[in-house]
């Protein structure tokens, strides 16, 4: 933010003072973050820290309670639905649960955007098969998502996210559920996308493998705030007890578990704000 580079180039993604709470429970609490073009940014944090919520806010799938989010310098929430959808073409997203369309075969999932853009079926199948090879799953193009294992779904989700050559990619735990060999294949694939195609990415990770492999910047999300933002090398050398506990994965240390954090947040929450029916309905969704 203070580097001379940022004064010349505009950040691809820029969050300032973003708040988001669910039923009076603060999940994102004053998040500010800039991601530069070509940067690979990794967000780490405890389970339930709000990492997926952060990505969904950037994509406009959840509406932040306050704060602004700029993607390519534009605030998407101010745009019409059609304009936002048009801008989505430059974005790829790998969901934590893969979120494959289970009514379609694998190839159609992967080539969904291409088909919508009017590509002929034969060509789309070819592209899908090529993507499947990239993620180490040749020959499953005609299967239905229900026939795949969790790790396979995840990789098909990855293929779908990158098939239309997006400039900005969000990966929600790309290595979750993969064996060590496949983790390495996928890590190399993501790294190659960076080096060859100069994509900007925001990756959510739990373990340090991805951080070591190709991150430029790492942010630790803790109790709704960005606890610290630093480079991978700095993270390795950091002596901060909280970061050390997270990196080494110890149960003992300064990290409070989310249930405690929840209780604290609940006490602070405004009791008059009725629970409404948020758990029953998803009214605010797109």
């Amino acid at each position, binding site marked *: 933010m203070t580097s001379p580079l940022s004064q010349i180039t505009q950040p691809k993604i820029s969050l300032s003072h973003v708040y988001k709470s669910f039923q009076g429970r603060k999940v994102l609490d004053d998040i500010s973050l800039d991601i530069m073009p070509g940067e690979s940014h990794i967000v780490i944090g405890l389970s339930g820290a709000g990492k997926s919520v952060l990505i969904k806010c950037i994509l406009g799938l959840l509406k932040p309670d306050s704060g602004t989010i700029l993607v390519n310098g534009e605030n998407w929430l101010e745009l019409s639905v059609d304009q936002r959808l048009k801008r989505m073409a430059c974005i790829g997203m790998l969901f934590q649960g893969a979120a494959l369309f289970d009514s379609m075969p694998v190839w159609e999932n992967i080539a969904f955007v291409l088909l919508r853009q009017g590509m002929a079926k034969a060509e789309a199948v070819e592209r899908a098969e090529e993507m499947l090879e990239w993620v180490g799953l040749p020959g499953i193009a005609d299967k239905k998502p229900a026939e795949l294992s969790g790790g396979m779904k995840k990789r098909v989700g990855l293929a779908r996210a990158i098939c239309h050559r997006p400039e900005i990619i969000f990966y929600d735990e790309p290595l979750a559920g993969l064996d060590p060999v496949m983790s390495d294949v996928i890590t190399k694939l993501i790294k190659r996308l960076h080096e060859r195609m100069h994509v900007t990415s925001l990756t959510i990770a739990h373990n340090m493998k991805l951080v070591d492999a190709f991150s430029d910047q790492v942010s630790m999300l803790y109790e709704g705030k960005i606890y610290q933002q630093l480079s991978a090398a700095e993270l390795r050398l950091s002596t901060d007890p909280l970061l050390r506990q997270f990196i080494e994965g110890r149960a003992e240390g300064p990290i409070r578990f989310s249930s405690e954090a929840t209780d604290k947040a609940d006490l602070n929450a405004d009791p008059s704000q009725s629970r409404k029916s948020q758990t029953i*309905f998803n*009214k605010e969704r797109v």
Partner: protein
Amino acid sequence: MLMLQRIGAASERLAFAVGLYPLLLGKVLRRLHKPPWFFALIIRQCEMVGVQSLPVVLLTAVFTGMVMALQSWVAFHRFGAESMIATVVSLSILRELGPVLVGLMVAGRVGASFAAELGTMRVSEQIDALWTLSTDPVRYLIMPRLIAVILMMPLLVVLADAIGMLGGYAVSVHLLDQNPHTYIRNSYDYLQLIDLYSGLLKATVFGAIIGLVSCAEGYYCAGGAAGVGRATTRAVVISAMSILMADYMLTAWIFQ
């Protein structure tokens, strides 16, 4: 006090839920005038809603017609007015039983499947995924379903009317020994076009109710598998009750 609070909470929840229907309707109406319309999806939904509902709907209709004939015979036989059976059977099927029973069957079959399918897509983030793949979920998922059910309901009702009246004819003529020619003439002579049209108008309105309620319940569903189950139940119950209420209001309006 607790009772009152509970009623208050329940009605707040109801108001909140009912607020979803205009919300979704608004989203649909705002998109209606601009492409893409996804015609292929509309046709596929028409097949699922219309063609695949045919067996259920026709079976319902034929038995309703047959029962109507028997029951009106019991009534009219008491004062020797059996010739009225034909008129009563066709009139009640066209104006009332056709649209309402088809509406209820479609609410159960199609409404449940809309809500369950969309609800599952919502809780497994497939709707979010559509959005990230530059596709508007309202256009892609909601509009084809809504259009299909609004188009198919009148068609199903026309077929149900025909089959229902045929059932009434079969019972009257073959079981109750009515004269086939008088039966057909009585059916035909006393009917007016308004009887058919009012039934089709009802069918269209019921189709819109089923589509809107069950799509909204599924689309705004939350809370995992349990939430999908809840949404499905609500879709069927609320569509069915709304159909019956709308039926009274439409009948009263046409009656004037």
